[in-house]
């Protein structure tokens, strides 16, 4: 096993523990926690057995396993960033709502 594989597996196992911890402390909902555990488990498996990606690459029609992982990762990252943008927009709306409520209530009191 390569050094990078050991480091990555340790990191992914650590990440799974963090996710479980956040679920126990109610910072993460069940489905979200499950999704993240599944993701980190998959990452750990691919790190442990990189040749599994060769089968994936063959299925997708991509040359190398590593390339298939990179392409899928980039697509997933873009999707996550998009979701974050949407979430931020919703938070901005909520901030405006609170600011408006506060300003109108202060006006009523004065």
């Amino acid at each position, binding site marked *: 096993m390569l050094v990078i594989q050991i480091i990555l597996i340790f990191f992914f196992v650590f990440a799974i523990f963090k996710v479980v911890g956040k679920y126990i402390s109610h910072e993460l909902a069940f489905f979200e926690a499950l999704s993240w555990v599944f993701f980190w488990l998959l990452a750990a498996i691919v790190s442990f057995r990189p040749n599994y990606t060769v089968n994936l690459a063959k299925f997708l029609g991509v040359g190398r396993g590593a390339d298939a992982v990179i392409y899928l990762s980039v697509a997933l990252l873009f999707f996550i960033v998009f979701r974050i*943008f*949407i979430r931020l*927009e*919703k938070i*901005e*709306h909520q*901030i*405006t709502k609170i*600011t*408006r409520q*506060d*300003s*109108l209530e*202060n*006006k009523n009191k004065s």
Partner: protein
Amino acid sequence: MIFVVLPAFNEEKKIGRVIRDLFEHGFNNIVVIDDGSKDNTSLVAKTAGATVIKHVINRGQGAALQTGNEFALKQGAEIIVHFDADGQFEAQDIVSGLTRIEKDQVDVVLGSRFLDKRSKIPFLKKYFILPISRLFNNFFTGLKLTDVHNGFRIMRAKVAEKIIITQDGMAHNSQIPRLIKDYGFSFVEHPVKVLYFESGQGLKGGIKILWDLIIANFTK
């Protein structure tokens, strides 16, 4: 009852004059929404006799207009006017706009720089920026307007009750006409004079507006 809503951000130098001019033209219900100004906009506006509502943090012109609409409606407004706080518009155009809303029996009057020759529009803006922006805006709003992102509006209370401005930033200028179309409100464009002392939305501002309009489709 007519309410004039002025969204304001750091306009201490100009807002006093704008308010006094509105009073001189007979408008007594003037509401300034101080959108988190860092200067003395609120104090100047209060001293000039306007009702001031202060956003504790800056939220954007669209957000300020929605706050103004909600306040005006609670006070029993029958007609709400949107008017810029930086002195770019003329109070006399409200007078003629109000005559128009009654004469044409429409729900909304939208200001346009292009219906008369009073506005001295900078060359680049008049022949390049605004025509291109108008194309995008008309496509997005579904309305064929002669002007784009003109902040002068006169609307009946029923319009303000229905049209909830959720675009906090400058994209509200596209959202409002879009909602006018979606709700089937009748409208007419009315000539207004715009005085130029700032360049308005640059390319960066335009891209931000486009982005806000696209993102809004995913946050309904």
